[in-house]
C-alpha cells in the first residue's frame, strides 16, 4: 500500500497549499466516492477539522440516499455545508429531457457559477481524476478559470515541482485538483485502507446483480452489471474491467466533456 500513501502525502500537501494561499476557499462534495475521499483527506490534512465549507451543487435530481448520507456526515463530522441550486432553471422546468448537455450546463455548471458568484470563492477544491476522462488528464493541480469560469486549455500556466499557481487576477478563480493522480482503483484501495464510510447501498451489489460505479443524477446515471458485494470484490472487478468508468454517465457521449469542461463544468 506504499503507493496509496504516496498519493495521500501528495494530496495532503496540495490541500494544505490551498488552505494557506486562498482566503476564500471551498470544497465541492457530491457525496460520490471521489469527493468523499477528498473530504477524508481534508480531515487528515487538518487533523480532524475541515476548515472550509463543503459545497454541494444540488440539481434536485440526486438519488435520495445521497442527500441522507450528506446530512448525516455533515452532522457527525461537524462540516460547514453550503448547498447551492439553480432555482431559476428548476422553476422553469429544466430537466434532462430538454437535452443532457443543456441540463448539466444549467443545473451543474450554472449552479456552480451562481454559488461562486454569491460567495465569491477564489479557490475551489474538486475531486476530479485524470483517468476519468481525457480532458481531465490534461489538467493542472491548480488550474485557473477566467471571469466567465472558462478553462483556457490551450494556454495553461506552467506547473513546476510542488510550486503551484496561487496568485491570480481579481475576478478569476482557481480550481484545485488534489486527486488528479489517483485512479478509480486507488480510490477504492484508500477507502478500504482508511475504512471511510461510503454509500455502500449504491456502490455495492445489494443482491440485484448491479451496482453504481459512478454517481450522478438519477435520470442520467445507470448502474452497471456487477456482483461485487464488498470493496475487495470491487477492486478485483475493476482490475479485470476494461469498460470506462463514466460509461454510465450520459452527458459524456461524443465531445460532451470537452465542451462542458471548457465552459466551467467540473
Amino acid at each position, binding site marked *: 500500500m506504499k*503507493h496509496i500513501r504516496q498519493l495521500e502525502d501528495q494530496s495532503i500537501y496540495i490541500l494544505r497549499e490551498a488552505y494557506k494561499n486562498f482566503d476564500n476557499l471551498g470544497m465541492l462534495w457530491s457525496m460520490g466516492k471521489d469527493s468523499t475521499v477528498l473530504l477524508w483527506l481534508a480531515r487528515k490534512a487538518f*487533523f480532524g477539522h475541515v476548515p472550509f465549507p463543503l459545497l454541494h451543487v444540488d440539481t434536485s435530481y440526486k438519488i435520495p440516499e445521497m442527500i441522507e448520507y450528506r446530512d448525516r456526515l455533515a452532522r457527525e463530522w461537524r462540516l460547514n455545508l453550503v448547498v447551492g441550486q439553480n432555482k431559476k432553471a428548476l422553476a422553469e422546468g429544466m430537466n434532462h429531457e430538454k437535452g443532457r448537455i443543456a441540463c448539466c450546463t444549467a443545473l451543474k455548471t450554472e449552479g456552480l457559477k451562481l454559488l461562486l458568484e454569491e460567495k465569491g470563492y477564489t479557490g475551489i477544491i474538486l475531486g476530479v481524476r*485524470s483517468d476519468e476522462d481525457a480532458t481531465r*488528464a490534461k489538467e493542472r493541480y491548480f488550474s485557473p478559470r477566467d471571469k466567465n469560469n472558462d478553462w483556457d486549455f*490551450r494556454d495553461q500556466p506552467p506547473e*513546476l*515541482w510542488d510550486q503551484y499557481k496561487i496568485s491570480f487576477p481579481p475576478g478569476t478563480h482557481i480550481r484545485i485538483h488534489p486527486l488528479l493522480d489517483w485512479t478509480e482503483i486507488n480510490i477504492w484501495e484508500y477507502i478500504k485502507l482508511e475504512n471511510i464510510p461510503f454509500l455502500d447501498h449504491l456502490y455495492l451489489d445489494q443482491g440485484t446483480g448491479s451496482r453504481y460505479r459512478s454517481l450522478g443524477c438519477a435520470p442520467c446515471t445507470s448502474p452497471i452489471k456487477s456482483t461485487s458485494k464488498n470493496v475487495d470484490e470491487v477492486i478485483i472487478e475493476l482490475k479485470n474491467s476494461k469498460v470506462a468508468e463514466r460509461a454510465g454517465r450520459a452527458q459524456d457521449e461524443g465531445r460532451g466533456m470537452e465542451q462542458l469542461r471548457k465552459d466551467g463544468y467540473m
Partner: protein
Amino acid sequence: MTTDTTIQERMNIVIVGHVDHGKSTLLGRLYADTGTLPEGKIEKIQAICRQQGKEFEYAFLFDAFLEEQQQGITIDTARTFFTWGGRQYIIIDAPGHKEFLKNMVSGAARAEAALLIIDALEGVRDQSKRHGLLLSMLGVKQVTVVVNKMDLVNYREDTFQAIEKEYREFLTQLNVVPQYIIPASAKQGINITQISPETPWYTGPSVLESLAHFHLETARNEQALRFPLQDVYKFDARRILVGRITAGKLKIGDRLVFSPTNKSANIQSIEAFNCDPPPTQAIAGQSVGITLDEQIFVERGHIATHEDTRPMVSTQIRANLFWLGSQPLETQKTYTLRLATREVPCEIAAIHRIVDANNLDDRHTQSMVQRNEVADITLRTKAPLAFDLYASFETTGRFVLVDNYDVAGGGIITELVADEQENFRTEARERDSAWVKGDVGVEERSLRYGHRAAVVLFTGADTTAKSFLARKLETVLVAEGRHAYLLAAENLQRGLDADLHDTKPEEIVRRFGEVVRLLADTGSLVITTTNPFPPTAKGIVQTVQTLVNPIQVVTVHMTKDQTGPQPDRDLIFAGPEDFDARTHQIIETLKQKGILAKPSSSQPAVQFSI
C-alpha cells in the same frame, strides 16, 4: 498478456522528444499491445478517423482535445495510467512542439524517469537536445532513449549507431548516462513490448521491459533532514507545524533548528488523524505534522533541519535557470522567488550567459533571457534565504520565479554567493546556538505584554525629525501600556563604544545591533534611529536585521525630498509632517504586521500567532 494485480509502488514517467518523432504513437502502442486500453477505445477512434477520412494513428488515443486531433499534435501534457509488473505507472505524454515547451516542462517536472524519443530518419533535432538539457535541470536523472521509426531506415544498425553515438556524447556533457538506447518502431510495434526479429543486432530490452529498470528514488531518506515548514495550525489546543519532509527523517525527541532564524526546539509529538498508535518517526516524502516542546516563533518558509546539518543562508545565489515567461527575464526588475515553501522578492543581479542547448560549449552573453532559453544567472533576494545547492539537495536546491501571477521560470542553485552580511549572520547563528535562556518563553512574554518584541528603526538624512517622531512614538506606546523603549544610539558612544572613537564604523554598527537584540529579547518594542552613525557606516539596516533576526524590524524612512528614488522601507514619510498622524500610521503598521494586539488595558487577547 496479463497485468499483475498486486501493486507495490508507483512511478511517474515522461515521454519527451522533438515534435513528430512519435511520442504519442509510442504511448498508444504501449497501451494497445499490453491490453491496457478500455474496451472499444480503438474502435471509437477508428470510427472518428474513417469519418474524417484519415488514417488511424495510435497517437489519437491520447490527444484528447479536438484541436489536437485535427492538427495531429499534442498541445498539453496528458497523464495516463498503466499497471505493469507490480508497478502503477503514470505516463506523462509531453508535447514536442517548441511553442508548448512550458507544458513539456510541467509534465517532466512531475516525472522520476523519462523516455526520450528520437526519429531514426530525422535524427537528433533541436528539441531532442533541449528536452535532454531540461530533463537534467528538472531532476529527471533516469533516461532511456528510444530511436523510433526504425522501419523508415530499414532497421539499419549503422543509422542507429550514428544517432546513439551523437546523443550519448550530448548527454555525457550533461552528466546523464542513458540506461538504454533502444531501436524501435512504434507504428509497426517493433521492440515495444517485446524484442522483434527485425533488429537481430540489438541485444537490450524492449521499451516495456526497460521500464522495470527505472528505480524509485529512495536515497533521499538517507540524506540529512530537510523539513520546509508549510503552515502552523492551531485548530485546537495543539500547535501543529505541518509540511512535507523533502529529505532525511525525523523522530520524536529530535532537536530541530529552523533556518534562516536559527530558532530551535525539540519534537514533542508527531500528530496524525485516524492513526493508532500515533507515529514516532517520519521520512522523506511524507506530509507530516509535529509539535514542539517549546513555543518558539516559526512560520511558513522556514526550513527545519538537525543542528549540525543546516542549509546555507545568503541573499545572493548563482543558478541555472530556464525561462518560460511571455515577457523576457530582465535585470532591474523584481520577481517573486519561491523555494520550497518560502516566498521572497528578488531581482536578477547578473545574467552571465545564455546556454545554447544545441551547442553546450558555445555560450554567449545577453542582457535578457528570452522565453524557452536557459541562462546562468546571479539572483539577489530582498531577505535572507535558506537553501541548498542542487547537487546536494534536490527540493531545497531549486526554485521558481513568479512573474505577473504565473510561475515563469525554474532554476537550480549552483553556488552560494557570499554577501556583505555573511560575517554577521555567522555571528548571530553561533550566538543563538549557545544562547542561555531563562524560564520565561517568548509566548509568555507576548501574552503578558500584549505585543511581540520588535524593532522600529528610523532612517533618513539629518534634520528630518527622526528623533522627534521616535520620541513621540515611545511616549504614545508607553501611554497605551506597551513596553516600549527609545534607544538613542548616541548613548552608546561614551559608554560601550568609548574605546572605538569613530574609527571602526563596522564595529560601531555591530555593537549597536547586538544591544538592540538584547533589548528586544526582553520582549520590548525597541525604537531607535540611525542618527549618530558616521557617514562611512554602511548597511546599518541590513546589519540590524541580520543581528536581531528573527525579531521583526519595521523600518521608517524620513526625507524632505518627495521626488527622488526612495530606499526599500516599510514606511516612507516625505515632506512636511503631521506627527500625530504619522505616529498613528506607524502603530497601525505594527498592528498589521501582527506585532501589536489589542490595547493591553483590556484582557490580553492575543490576535497574533507566535
